[in-house]
């Protein structure tokens, strides 16, 4: 993502202001309204929501590319061979044996060189000895048992002679087998002479050499407690974490777009702690047999009973014609009945009457499963939705933006608001997912906390559904450009609407995250989040509703924020917040 460009064309300055609230929002639209608290808090970090989620902190980690890693590794190798006066490859093998600790190598070597050599299997011999260039003497290869002339053989410095063909197969098989090839020894079982990088370089073909080098680099990284590979699929980056940094937030966002927790290597799980996440993941594994059916991706339409497959991201489903029934994927209730509310609440529907004991126990067990299922299903659905959103976003970034740019005569840089919306969706799905694990672990007796939690979560969730729906369905109509309404004017209105929804949703989620991080104690009114937008929206709110503030009533404040977002149309120019524009919602 690019940092937000504040020097852009003045025409777009205003329309963008909705999204780019850091600077432009206040300078242009609300400068007079604001009480000034946050005006100059604007940060110049890149305007990516992932950073925004961490807005209280600077980056505490560094993404390292393979080149960076190789350079560091080479520096350490150089430190060893220049001091020990041995070959680079020998230095490499000794470091491998001593967990890549340069100081340990120096210490051990100067204490007892012979011992180090024996441990590593290092015979410091001339390369000419390992690969004889001449010699007609006929010898027997110890592997294929053929007689060959000496110049077609190799040894790793010991007396055991094998032909080059067998050596190649020996080295390649070992590299294929895995990282064990790094400590490969002479094929003769009783011999400890090491087969090092120098041998591999001569004997192995390029692709095996590459694999070998990769193992060597991995061992370097695994020995370093501050560096870990990004667990993202197919990702080659590593992440160095500054562990002197404030504890508590280990979320890392890699350049490959994968986000994960550096501490426990699970998917990024702010605002939950690693312990809760581990507990939840374990719970899911143990419950897996019971809940597998949940992952079935089809459900019958509640009205016509035809099976419907969910392959879009949002939860608003519309059955195929002629039925056209609109329902919520999660609760299967009518979508209109939701009226913008989310169905995140877990209700303990049945009250246990006077049942026989066995019956009561069965009821209890059933309820426990139902309760778990409620949270699990929502957790899993949001994860699936997040993955879908990620792939939708990639498609939009790679193909649809070009189409839109042509259709509506706008440079792609001016379409950034679409990607911002999708980034927000991806991040919100992630947070929302984890809040369901959080909800599961709220103690039963904490009624007040639970209802506050469900309130904040519900607001955030319904905000997100509106945003997701808009970014998915409405955007699609502009991409296909089939309907007559898809005019340039309407597209600009769409821009305002989507950017507004993005901004509002961001506020909701910041509140949600803050509420959970505070353990659902009442949210501090002057939250410790000077860069966050919600503080600013709050600041603005004081102008209109100052009397109702100050009590620190989180729920009330959130409700007010919501009203702000909806009634004001956030940009101050929306025609009336018709965010539930869902006339063409087909899932097929």
């Amino acid at each position, binding site marked *: 993502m690019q940092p937000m460009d504040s020097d852009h064309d003045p025409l777009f300055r205003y329309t963008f202001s909705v999204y780019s609230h850091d600077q432009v929002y206040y300078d242009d639209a609300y400068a007079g309204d604001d009480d000034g608290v946050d005006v100059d808090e604007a940060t110049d970090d890149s305007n990516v929501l992932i950073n925004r989620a961490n807005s209280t902190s600077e980056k505490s980690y560094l993404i390292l590319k393979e080149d960076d890693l190789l350079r560091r590794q080479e520096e350490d190798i150089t430190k060893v061979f220049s001091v020990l006066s041995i070959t680079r490859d020998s230095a490499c093998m000794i470091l491998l044996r001593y967990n890549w600790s340069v100081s340990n190598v120096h210490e051990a070597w100067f204490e007892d060189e012979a011992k180090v050599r024996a441990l590593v299997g290092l015979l410091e011999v001339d390369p000419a000895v390992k690969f004889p260039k001449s010699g007609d003497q006929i010898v027997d290869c110890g*592997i294929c048992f053929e007689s060959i002339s000496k110049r077609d053989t190799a040894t790793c410095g010991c007396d055991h002679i094998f032909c080059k063909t067998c050596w190649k*197969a020996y080295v390649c098989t070992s590299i294929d087998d895995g990282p064990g090839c790094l400590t490969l020894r002479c094929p*003769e079982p009783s011999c400890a002479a090491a087969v090092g990088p120098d041998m591999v370089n001569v004997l192995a073909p390029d692709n095996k050499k590459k694999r070998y080098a990769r193992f060597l680099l991995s061992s370097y990284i695994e020995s370093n407690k501050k560096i870990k590979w990004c667990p993202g699929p197919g990702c080659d980056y590593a992440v160095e974490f500054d562990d002197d940094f404030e504890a508590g937030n280990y979320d890392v966002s890699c350049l490959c777009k994968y986000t994960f927790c550096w501490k426990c290597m699970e998917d990024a799980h702010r605002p939950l702690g690693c312990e809760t996440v581990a507990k939840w993941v374990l719970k899911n594994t143990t419950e897996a047999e019971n809940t597998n059916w949940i992952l079935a991706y089809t459900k019958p339409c509640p009205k016509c009973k035809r099976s419907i497959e969910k392959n879009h991201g949002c939860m608003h489903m519309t059955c195929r014609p002629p039925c056209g029934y609109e329902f919520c994927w999660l609760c299967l209730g009518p979508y209109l009945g939701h009226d913008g509310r989310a169905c995140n609440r877990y209700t303990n529907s049945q009250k246990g009457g006077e049942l026989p004991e066995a019956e009561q126990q069965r009821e209890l067990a059933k309820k426990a499963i139902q309760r778990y299922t409620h949270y699990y299903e929502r957790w899993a659905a949001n994860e699936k939705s997040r993955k879908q959103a990620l792939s939708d976003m990639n498609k939009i970034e790679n193909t649809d933006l070009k189409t839109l740019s042509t259709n509506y005569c706008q440079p792609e840089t001016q379409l950034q608001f679409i990607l911002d919306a999708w980034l927000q969706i991806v991040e919100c799905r992630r947070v929302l997912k984890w809040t369901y694990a959080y909800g599961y672990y709220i103690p039963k007796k904490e009624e007040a906390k639970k209802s506050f939690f469900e309130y904040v979560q519900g607001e955030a969730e319904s905000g997100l559904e509106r945003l997701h729906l808009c970014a998915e369905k409405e955007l699609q109509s502009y991409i296909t450009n089939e309907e007559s309404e898809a005019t340039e004017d309407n597209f600009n209105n769409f821009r305002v609407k989507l950017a507004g929804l993005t901004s509002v949703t961001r506020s909701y989620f910041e509140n949600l995250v803050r509420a959970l991080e505070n353990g659902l104690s009442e949210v501090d009114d002057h939250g410790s989040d000077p860069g966050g937008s919600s503080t600013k929206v709050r600041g603005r709110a004081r102008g209109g509703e100052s009397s109702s503030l100050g009590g620190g009533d989180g729920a009330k404040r959130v409700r007010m924020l919501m009203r702000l977002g909806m009634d004001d149309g956030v940009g101050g120019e929306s025609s009336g917040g018709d965010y539930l524009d869902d006339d063409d919602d087909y899932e097929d």
Partner: protein
Amino acid sequence: MVDFSRVQKELQECNRDINVSGISVNPKSDNLTNLIGTIPGPTGTPYEGGTFKIDIDLPDGYPFEPPKMKFATKVWHPNISSQSGAICLDILKDQWSPALTLKTALLSIQALLSAPEPDDPQDAVVAQQYLKDYQTFASTARYWTESFAKTSSLGVEEKVQKLVEMGFPEALVRSTLEVVGGDENMALEKLCSG
């Protein structure tokens, strides 16, 4: 691809001193990737007097990958599965080296018969018995050797008759029995595989 030239050499080499070692390796059929190894039970052990057959499969990467070996003869031993004949031996796994041969592997298995390692068991039941009640272990092992590892006491004519009754031509039965040294099971296997 299996290095068949090396396998040929191995077979010749191994069968040359069969009288000294008692260890032999023979192709199961024309295909050199399936072999049968034979080892005599070591003297002074419950396996003494038995002849143990080992199924050998050579993987494509042989000799750079270890041969797959398991007991075809049932045996009662802590490191050998009494059910499947699977063998727990390091040189058949990660300690294999292409400088080893089928014969050295069979010699290692023979050594394993002499010196079980109950702390690294393949068959937990046998290993328990070995550690807790060696006497019972030894007599069970001896009984299994008697029952499964000794060439059947049938005379040659009885074996011929038995196989002919199964539908094989008498001349072929006689020549096959000769090739496998009178072992009726191996003869049957060879007859069946054509």
